[in-house]
């Protein structure tokens, strides 16, 4: 099954989207967005994998002695994680303020408040 890792990434993404669409709590929605982002980590790392390869760090292996996985997608995953963490922090700060101003974190109730 050489497409399984890609399918897992797609599955995690769709599950996250489902959670986002049916969420009744903004904190839960932020968590679902983080799940969607996890799908991109899986996809990136799956794209970069090479059979029988090790980490692209040459402090303890001789360069050229073993195949290494793609370092470019690993660096992209790191960027992805950092951006994901900052977005989560910013969204949670927004949720804190929404909860203080409106007294609820249910998106449906918030829509009714807006009229």
């Amino acid at each position: 099954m050489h497409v399984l890792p890609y399918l897992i990434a797609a599955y995690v993404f769709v599950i996250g989207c489902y959670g986002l669409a049916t969420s009744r709590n903004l904190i839960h929605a932020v968590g679902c967005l983080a799940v969607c982002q996890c799908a991109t980590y899986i996809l990136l790392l799956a794209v970069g994998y090479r059979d029988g390869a090790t980490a692209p760090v040459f402090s303890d292996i001789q360069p050229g002695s073993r195949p290494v996985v793609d370092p470019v997608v690993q660096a992209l995953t790191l960027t992805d994680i950092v951006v994901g963490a900052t977005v989560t922090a910013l969204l949670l700060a927004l949720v804190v303020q929404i909860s203080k101003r409106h007294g609820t974190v249910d998106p449906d109730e918030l829509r009714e408040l807006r009229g």
Partner: protein
Amino acid sequence: MNPRARLWLVVLGGAGLAALLAAACLRLPRFGGGHHPYGDRAVHAALTRHTANTIASVNFDQRAFDTMGEMAILFAAVLGCVVLLRQARDEHRARPRPAEVAPPVRRYALVALPVALVTGLYVIAHGQLSPGGGFQGGVVAATAVHLMYLGADYAALERVRPVEAFEAGDALAASVYLVLGLAGVPAGTAFLANTLLPYGTFDKLSSGGTVPLLNAAIGMEVACAVVVLLARFLDQAVEIEEESGK
């Protein structure tokens, strides 16, 4: 739209999206295949510049400009959180009450704190050699400080963590990254080009040219940013109260 109709719409759209994603997955290159043109070139470039950790080389040398953008995102997000979580007009600051901590928790936190802090600094310092780097080590070092909150109480944490100093440190580290990028420009090289310093001996702390310096700047930036972020959220939870006395 009523919830039931919305759920059907979600299921319909989700099924379509899932089908398209599955069809796309089947057309992707085989998992574990040997054809990685960018990866091979990145490894080659990292080795010619004597950087043992290829990912550090990609982040702080080959894609150093993108890392600057990433740092700007982090900086802007912290700024946004500071603005969003400021003390509003109808709120006041209550002094946090001293808390009782179970002796085993206190002992463990006080033993683990220096260990975690040194681990974080080690991970930052060896970013160009072994797995890790400024981003990872910065988070470890920043969370280590917060063991003080677990082991003692909030007042003790505030004594070891002056937020203003960390805010200044965040800005300072971001400017250090910019200055390091500009340092080579008068000599006629491109912005953030790794030509400023000798590449050094492979697999030694000083190897990789400007990679260790940019890595250290990012480590400081991330550590300060995480401390400031957590301070703002903890302030909301511990100190700031609404005027009505909720």
